[in-house]
């Protein structure tokens, strides 16, 4: 699927009103960054934990079809922001708009079903399920996820038919990530890097439009990292959008088109990697907070 097709399709999916709203606010915010067609907008996000403010009015947008990096020193609020976007936490204030739909404070499963799917800093594979079972869990709208369809004989026929199609897609995805030889293995027996691959492959089977990757390269060896990155680029060409939190600056600088820097719960700077590299404030924040 080409980039333009993907965009057209999702535009069609959003109601005219929402599409207009999203276009409007995009022009409003051109001052903050070169975002023409935001797929994700985070506006004045605030999250407190007891007396601590983890996210303090974060504002940013993610361009459709881009690979955007989210960086910042430890404790900058990146993971909390991720958790607020994906519904794991309920933000205290602010809004999250995905593809023209307000997803603020919605349940994680609801957000995922909108096409915004995440992976975790420490891979959350389902350890006592096989790699293939992990994969088969992911696809949306499975008929067999209703109890009665799984049990009643005639209805089950359709479930079985759908399973056969999904099985095919699952195998294809495993082959794409070159982990098909592990299909029958318990996911808990995989190496750290293989789990990261599995998590990404699994997330893709949900047919997302955008993927939030929380430190996808952490604990991944260099050759696997290369492979993962090439997968990400290949997927970008197919029309997916990526937002990744990453500590490895080489990854951010060489592979992201746009970088957002968070510091003390707010967005400190954003721009293309070259700008960020030379930004005094960013350097200060990193040095001040001990890299």
């Amino acid at each position, binding site marked *: 699927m080409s980039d333009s097709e993907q965009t057209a399709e999702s535009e069609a999916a959003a109601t005219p009103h929402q599409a207009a709203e999203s276009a409007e606010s995009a022009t409003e915010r051109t001052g903050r960054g070169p975002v023409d067609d935001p797929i994700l907008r985070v506006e004045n996000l605030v999250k407190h934990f007891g007396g601590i403010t983890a996210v303090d009015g974060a504002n940013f947008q993610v361009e459709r079809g881009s690979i955007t990096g989210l960086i910042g020193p430890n404790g900058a609020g990146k993971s909390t922001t991720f958790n607020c976007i994906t519904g*794991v*936490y*309920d933000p205290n204030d602010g809004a999250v708009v995905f593809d023209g739909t307000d997803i603020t*404070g*919605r349940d994680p499963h609801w957000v995922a079903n909108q096409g915004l799917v995440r992976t975790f800093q420490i891979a959350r594979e389902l350890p006592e399920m096989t790699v293939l079972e992990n994969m088969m869990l992911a696809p949306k709208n499975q008929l067999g996820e209703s109890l009665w369809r799984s049990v009643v004989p005639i209805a089950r026929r359709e479930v079985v038919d759908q399973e056969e199609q999904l099985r095919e897609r699952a195998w294809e995805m495993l082959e794409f990530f070159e982990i098909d030889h592990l299909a029958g293995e318990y996911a808990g027996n995989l190496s750290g890097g293989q789990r990261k691959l599995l998590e990404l492959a699994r997330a893709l089977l949900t047919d997302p439009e955008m993927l939030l990757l929380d430190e996808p390269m952490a604990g991944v060896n260099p050759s696997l990292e290369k492979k993962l990155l090439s997968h990400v680029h290949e997927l970008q060409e197919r029309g997916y959008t990526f937002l990744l939190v990453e500590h490895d600056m080489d990854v951010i600088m060489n592979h992201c088109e746009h970088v957002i820097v968070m510091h003390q719960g707010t967005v400190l700077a954003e721009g293309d990697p070259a700008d960020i590299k030379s930004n005094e404030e960013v350097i200060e924040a990193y040095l001040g907070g001990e890299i």
Partner: protein
Amino acid sequence: MSTGYGRGRLSNVTAQEVVGGLLLALIGILILDLVRLLVTGELPLSRLWSFTWNGIVDSLYIGLAAIGLSMTYSILRFANFSHGDLVTTGAFSGWTVAYLVGGIGIADLSSRLLLRADGGAQPGSVGMDVLAAPVAIILGLVVAAIVTILVALAIDRLVYRQLRDAGGIPLLIASVGVALALRYLIAFVYTTDTRIVVASPPQPELSELVWLELPAFLAERTINLHEATLVIAALALILGVHLLLQYTKLGKSMRAMSDNKDLALITGIPTERVIFATWVIGSGLAGVAGYLIVLDRGQITINLGWFLLLLIFAAVILGGIGSIYGALAGSLVIGLTINLSLIWIPSDLNEIAAFTLMIIVLIFRPDGLFSGVETA
């Protein structure tokens, strides 16, 4: 498994506030009704006082047991379902020694060793009250603690140590196994019969105990010496635990570990030694609690601790798991709940009130009623 990431449209904070508000409103209504009952004279003040006093007594032995349960929950990280049977162990071992010592030359060895399993050795004839055989009773108290500690340490070595890193649920299941095995080993030796083992308590008037001149309404008041023993012993032990936790290095280590085990490990706190201390203190208090309950109630049964367990859990949960002062406060709430609720409901429903309170707190305030308060 269910993680703590719970939240939804109805965010936790508001649900907590709603339920907290409802509970407060209910308590408010009950207090108003209490005032009405007192004013109209439907509830004599003496009855209210006796309910309250019974509540305090109940909360003291529940509290003794709850300290140990709370400690194992926070330091060993599992819900110990065998804790109730440690209470039972203390009761049987302690009273066996009290009988052995108190009944020398009066009753045969068989009846004394097996706590009247054969029906012999009447409690009165063996002198089983605090005035007739104070030495035997106190010795029994000490032995109850020691035996329970030894049993708990043996169980820890045989069972729980093998499962240190297995996670809360396997440990919980193993503790159910321990509970069954321990309780029915006791039953194998002592039989399953419920029996009276303590003579009726001496009830002197207050003027006989105090040399001071007392006003008449106090002087004629009778004191149940067994209950008084329970209260004094329990308060002394609670004070002791408080001093230990606040002012010794061991106590500080224990508090650190209940806050954050991993951090405590990094900072070099000797884990196994803290676990050892946890069992010593926790099971010692549980054993004493069992012994004192029997002193107060007069009768002993192998289900003594098991039937108490859910109330102890309720106290620990109300107080916020891991906080010893919370556990004591929770015990007071539970003790008062099961007794003061008798003003409104029949006595066979009072535990239902306590369990309902526990469930509501678990669901809506899993950190306990007193969360946010600085705890140990």
